[in-house]
């Protein structure tokens, strides 16, 4: 009987401590605009907020859904919301932790290679990656890349990186070494004696 009471007490304590939803951090890209929603109850109003202000709530903050424009810096923050029903009863505040992560990057390990050399791409971000690049103007998409650096190959041509997507974000590649050339094999030089 005593044991049962203890268990009940623990359950009660646990319910009290964790009465507000504790969620795993939700991940968003820096600079992105994201949509958040709670179940709607007729007659209720909802009040939303962002603890550390690293995002901006777009449009009404009293409806059951909002859009948040997150800042361009990586970091952690939390969204909170509470409901006030038609009888003016305020519910507990619910939170959602949010991790703002940097966008992935990709660049070639070398801008110019000789024929026979291996062209590789070096990523930042979280596996797996998807990579879109061109070779001599032809678009090539490679999904499910789980290696970093990733080997493109040795085929000669003009290579250009277009965008990269990691587990969380997509990024148009705008900087770094995004062009590379694997030269054509050279003909054997003939030595001429004049």
């Amino acid at each position, binding site marked *: 009987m005593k044991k049962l009471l203890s268990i009940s007490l623990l359950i009660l304590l646990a319910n009290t401590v964790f009465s507000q*939803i504790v969620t795993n951090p939700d991940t968003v890209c820096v600079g992105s605009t*994201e949509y958040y*929603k709670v179940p709607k109850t007729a007659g209720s109003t909802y009040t939303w907020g962002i603890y550390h202000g690293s995002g901006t709530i777009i449009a009404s903050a009293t409806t059951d859904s909002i859009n948040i424009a997150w800042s361009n810096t990586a970091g952690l923050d939390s969204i909170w919301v509470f409901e006030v029903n038609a009888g*003016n*009863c305020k519910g507990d505040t*619910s939170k*959602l932790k949010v991790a703002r992560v940097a966008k992935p990057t990709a660049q070639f390990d070398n801008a110019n290679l000789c024929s026979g050399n291996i062209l590789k791409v070096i990523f930042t971000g979280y596996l797996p990656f998807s990579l879109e690049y061109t070779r001599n103007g032809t678009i090539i998409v490679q999904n499910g890349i789980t290696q970093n650096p990733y080997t493109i190959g040795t085929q000669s041509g003009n290579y250009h990186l277009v965008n990269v997507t990691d587990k969380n974000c997509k990024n148009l590649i705008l900087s770094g070494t995004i062009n590379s050339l694997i030269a054509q094999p050279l003909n054997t030089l003939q030595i001429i004696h004049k």
Partner: protein
Amino acid sequence: MLKYICLYIIISVSVHVFAQKEAANWVLPHNFWLDFNSNPPTQKTTAITQQTGICTSPMSDSLGNLLFIAGSYQSITNSIIDKNGNLISSFLSSSQLVLPNKLVIPIPQNKQKYYVFLSVYNTDVTPNNFGCYFTIIDMQLNNGLGSAVTGSTNILFNSDTIISVTGTKHSDCSGYWLILRSQTKFYAYLINSSGLNLAPVISNASSYINLNTGFQTFKVNPQGNKIAETTSNNQIICYDFNCTTGAITNNKIKDFTGIFNSIIAVEFSPDGSKLYFTTRNLSNLAQLNQVLISNGNIDFNNLSLIYNNTNSLDLVHLQIGIDSKIYISSSLIVNRQNFFSVINNPNLSGTNCNFIYKAIIAPLGVNFASKLPNFISSYFNPQACLDYTYTINCQSAQFTLNANSIQSVLWNFGDNQTSTLLNPTHTYVNTGTYTVTLIVIFTNIQQQTVTKQLTINPQPQIIKIVHK
């Protein structure tokens, strides 16, 4: 049965008297003041300079504090003065009607603004000056003493031969009707939160008023559904007033020639069931017992003579007070003081109405010349719009009572909890739908009950934020 006995006991022991007292101060001509904040009313003389014989319409707040008076000021015949006797605004006309020609009506849902109406009938000037004017007073101005609203003073809105004004509530319990009597017509103007609707409902009257041949009065009953007037031909005419549409119809005329001579004035009992009238040359007070009967007609033969003497002008004008008694003024006769006679229980038939001759005698020298103040008739029927509102704040509810002249209240919140406070707050332990019953006992001992249901909702559940 035991439950009801207990309720009655609780109500009976509630000693506080709650009242909305907009008609609590009768500031009369010649600086005489009856203050109905006490029972019986207290006689006061005031520094508020009022000419003798000029009709007044004093306005008080719901707690009985005098706000301002539509009356006269020194040599200015028709003016509006603050509670300290200072001039707020003057009407341009100096018309001196013997009938109630001023009336104050609040602007609904705006507790600080009031219309002051003045009817004028002035044949002493050329061209003759007829009609009805208004000025709006805003009590928020002049440090709370009130001032006329710029651009809203002396506005002529009816140019007919307006003789007298009265008013009552609209059936929605929010708006008011301003009713004007011209020589041949009635004009009913609706006043709501948007202000005065300048398109009146016009109804024909059954009699032509000739001010040179006699005095006449007209009154609306406190219930707002009957109008009675006297004519210079010893007639009493009753009409139906539709307080939804403003139409005045179904006139019933009784000629009392041979029974009474020179009928002057009328007044309804607070419950609207009786109509009292007075005569001029011999002082008679009579009661018509069945004013409100089922088919809308009036039994003019069900008549009681309440009092008579051979004096002239002992009993002139009649007016209900917020104590639900009817006060009857005398005219000043040489070597005699002004006085009031009182009908203590005007809802009762015959001599049971308990008429007291010369119940209140004014100080020597005071001459209010039989003039009584003019009020909206609905102030004397608190039951008409008894209602309460509530706002729910989660588990608790704040109740607000809307009624006049309350003796005591009993709230039953539907969860076996009660209160005798006027505007209580109650916290419910459990969620659910409750039937809240309010029992009100009015100062006239009548009782009324209002029942409503309210729902206490459960607290919102914990909600999960979804990122899409």
